[in-house]
């Protein structure tokens, strides 16, 4: 294994790994500060924050250093490379670069959204000087609120790292952002009338190391240090981007993509990113409702669950093959398992249907060329399938029933009068998952139980309404388009009387103790061979279902070191 020496400490790197000095130093837990370099973008080596001294250790043990500073991002390491990031020359260069960057910087941290997660703050604190020697007025540059529907530019906070420009050229391919003007007057801008509204635009806010590009959605909503982050999975399409859910006091304020080489990589799409509003919706179902005759009446969980159980058992006694359950592809594997197991245990003849799988157009691949056509190699895909866990729920239904039945089958059976009782788990928080006409068909049923988070044509006429939890309120597993099983984690409490679905189903199934996703996952893995990979701790990045026994690749994990 090749050895690299970082600040005197030897570390080993993989024989065929291609690392730059920043990455090699990360392995030695040494931070080389950097702005312009980003793992997924081309190297421009322009910010000069990452300057280091490098050299080579000769076979006789002597070290020959390059006689000047070099950018660590641009300098690959090989066997016996020596990296020095703490010499007086390097420290002086870091200090100088930060002083330069702050010369014209407005220092409006108190009103800047980035404060608290800003690399200009952090590096200035660690590597900078405490004051500026600029005596002259700072340059003022106009803010550019018009650069995108979702993004805004605080022009004079920009450190000109061009990450955002390279993102739109290399990842989205849409190329809206550019640099105008020269020298210290250089500014990020758009072509007049061509705002940066591509479906990945929100990522430029994440990769901007400072508070120059901000999200209009998040702007001035919260100070970031008030937020608590929970790692989870975006529920808005079957790509299943790894994300962080940032919340304060049970209100979700934003999603941020989380590095996952097995899922999407570094980024996420805007549909996913901003598709969280329903969580905080005032329309949420928050009260268990029961309709014995006449209108729906509020009730409590202690009353409704036994009622639901009795009603289902009654329907099964009457005619088990006329009892149906719709399992939503927004459910977790665990929830689908609990519901399917509970019902199939009561009667094998109950029919399980897969809830509506919303598909919109075709998979949307990036980068795009000037004509909007995707070009290889693909760097990001927004899936046409807009639900997070079709594969997981299907695996459960197949296990209990051999094959899945679709929503079309369900509505045909309802129209044909074959269904008397239905347990409907809603799900799609963005689009109604049934039409008013379909809702009217439910009037023919003797028993309708709806478990959902938002009102629908079904919940309005249900005999029992079980207010569930959004994905941010639940623990469990989603399986993405490629068969990657990833954990979602509870970030917030459910509003009012609403409860996470896993808890509702756990209690409905009459299980003892408290729901625990990890334990249940092990149970599922034991019973369902298609899901046996779930026995392993899912870890940060999840596990691929089709390669059971293969835990997350270690070198991939090593690469996950944080970077701005």
């Amino acid at each position, binding site marked *: 294994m090749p050895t690299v020496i970082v600040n005197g400490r030897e570390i080993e790197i993989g024989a065929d790994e291609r690392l730059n000095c920043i990455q090699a130093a990360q392995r030695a837990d040494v931070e080389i500060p950097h702005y312009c370099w980003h793992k997924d973008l081309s190297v*421009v080596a322009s910010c000069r924050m990452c300057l280091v001294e490098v050299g080579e250790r000769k076979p006789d043990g002597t070290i020959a250093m390059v006689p000047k500073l070099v950018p660590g991002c641009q300098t690959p390491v090989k066997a016996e490379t020596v990296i020095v990031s703490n010499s007086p020359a390097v420290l002086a260069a870091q200090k100088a670069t930060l002083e330069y960057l702050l010369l014209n910087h407005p220092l409006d941290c108190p009103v800047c959204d980035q404060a608290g997660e800003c690399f200009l703050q952090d590096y200035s604190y660690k590597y900078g000087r405490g004051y500026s020697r600029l005596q002259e007025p700072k340059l003022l540059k106009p803010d550019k609120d018009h650069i995108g529907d979702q993004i805004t530019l605080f022009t004079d906070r920009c450190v000109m790292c061009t990450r955002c420009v390279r993102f739109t050229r290399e990842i989205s391919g849409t190329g809206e952002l550019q640099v105008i003007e020269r020298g210290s007057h250089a500014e990020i801008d758009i072509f007049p009338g061509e705002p940066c509204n591509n479906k990945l635009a929100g990522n430029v806010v994440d990769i901007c190391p400072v508070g120059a590009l901000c999200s209009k959605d998040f702007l001035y909503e919260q100070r970031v240090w008030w937020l608590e982050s929970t790692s989870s999975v975006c529920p808005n399409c079957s790509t299943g981007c790894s994300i962080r859910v940032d919340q304060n006091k049970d209100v979700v304020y934003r999603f941020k993509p989380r590095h996952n080489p097995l899922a999407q990589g570094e980024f996420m799409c805007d549909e996913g990113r901003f598709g969280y509003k329903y969580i905080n919706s005032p329309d949420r179902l928050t009260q268990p409702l029961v309709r014995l005759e006449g209108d729906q009446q509020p009730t409590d969980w202690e009353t409704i669950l036994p009622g639901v159980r009795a009603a289902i058992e009654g329907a099964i006694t009457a005619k088990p093959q006329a009892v149906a359950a719709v399992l939503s592809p927004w459910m977790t594997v665990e929830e689908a398992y609990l519901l399917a197991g509970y019902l199939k245990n009561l009667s094998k003849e109950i029919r399980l249907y897969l809830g509506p799988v919303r598909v919109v157009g075709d998979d949307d691949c990036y980068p795009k060329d000037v004509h909007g056509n995707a070009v290889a190699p693909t760097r990001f895909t927004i899936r046409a399938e807009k639900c997070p866990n079709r594969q997981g729920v299907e695996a459960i239904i197949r296990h209990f029933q051999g094959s899945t039945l679709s929503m079309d089958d369900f509505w045909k059976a309802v129209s044909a009068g074959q269904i008397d009782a239905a347990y409907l788990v809603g799900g799609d928080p963005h689009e109604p998952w049934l039409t008013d006409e379909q809702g009217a068909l439910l009037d023919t049923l003797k028993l309708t139980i709806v478990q959902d988070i938002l009102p629908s044509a079904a919940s309005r006429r249900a005999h029992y309404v079980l207010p569930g939890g959004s994905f941010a309120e639940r623990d469990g597993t989603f399986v993405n388009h490629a068969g990657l099983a990833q954990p979602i984690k509870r970030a917030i409490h459910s509003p009012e009387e609403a409860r996470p679905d896993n808890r509702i189903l756990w209690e409905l199934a009459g299980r003892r103790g408290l729901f625990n996703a990890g334990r249940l996952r092990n149970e599922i893995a034991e019973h369902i061979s298609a899901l046996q990979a779930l026995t392993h701790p899912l870890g940060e990045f999840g596990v691929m279902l089709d390669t059971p026994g293969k835990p997350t690749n270690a070198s991939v994990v090593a690469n996950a070191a944080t970077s701005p």
Partner: protein
Amino acid sequence: MAEFEPVLMARIGKPDATSLASYQADGGYDGLKKALSMAPAEVTDIVKASGLRGRGGAGFPCGLKWTFLPKDHPGPIYLCVNADESEPGTFNNRVIMEGDPHQIIEGIAIACRAIKAQTAYIYLRYEFGKSYRVLQNAIDECYAANLLGKNILGTDFCLDVYLHRGAGAYICGEETGLIESLEGKRAWPRIKPPFPAIEGLFRKPTIVNNIETLACVTHIVRRGVDWFRSMGVPPDPNNPRDPGSFGPKLYCISGHVNKPGCYELPLGVTARQLIEEQGGGVWKGRKVKAVVPGGISMGFLSADELDTPLDFSGPGKAGCLGLGTAAVVVIDDHTSMVDVLFNCCRFMAHESCGQCTPCREGTDWMRKILERIRSGFGKSKDLDLLMEVAGSMGIIPGTTICGLSDGAAWPVKNAIKKFRGEFEEYIAKGMKSELPVLVDAH
């Protein structure tokens, strides 16, 4: 000096000098014919043996650069001809482009033969309208006479030459900025490696050469290595890395002299000889205070350094950055070095492309400090600050991508080192400059 016979300027001023017919009457394109009868590597060998060093500023050995191209490359290989000439004080390229364009096109064709390029782009400073017309006319004449185009002079050598008008910035003359600009982008210099010879224009192997360099190639091939090496300064025997400074050089003299202009002399003439023998001495009977040896980015020679030979190593020995473009700007003793330096800094702050943090911010910061000093609000510690800022900028400390930053820092370092007393006095007395500054000048 009297016996020196001009080479590059020999035909300038002759009637009809720019026409193909007159050029050919003087033996024009014989060099190309000779090159076409040789193998490409032989042509490169001749240029290498001549010791020709690039005239664009860095003085890199020309033939050596050509050998950096990948061997047996399937092509295309490109030649980019740097005619962006924007270093303040420099106008030698323009003089020969306007006055004798065919020697340049012949040099381009010979160079392309040597490096096996079939396409050459001349990147011409946008403001040079006359050069554009004269060069385009010369190119058209060559196509008509089968000196360019397909199967030149009945051989298998094909060459297209495109004349491209530049994007109007100093940085477009930096070789990788030039390449980016030719590709239709902002002239933001590229990081190296890869060097252009490996990956240049359109990511293909590319040689970038200056106009004057290529004009020299014409004469070297026509008249031989020994003739070329008979002019100039041989390598310093005490410095094994010095390749010497051979050949004729176009010196541009401007500033406070009686006869500013472009003069051709063998490399190695001293600043004093240039000013006195060519420039007709300092104007108004005044004395020299400082001399820019080769464009402002090279720094300054002081009055007692005037005997510095202006070859490739002379100015460096006097603490300047180098010979640069051999654009000699004479500054008389009535001129304030504070004003001079401010103007240098103003130019560099205006021309920094803006990608590297130290150059983008440092150039403008130095400009601001000098502007404040000029308004009478200087402080003595400003001088140390200026030195510190200048010291932290450039590829020499390793903090930037291209040489503009060194060129911006050098005049500051030289001026404050060599004229510190004047700066200190200016600040101590709270002096102010009434001189207007050409804020809109480029």
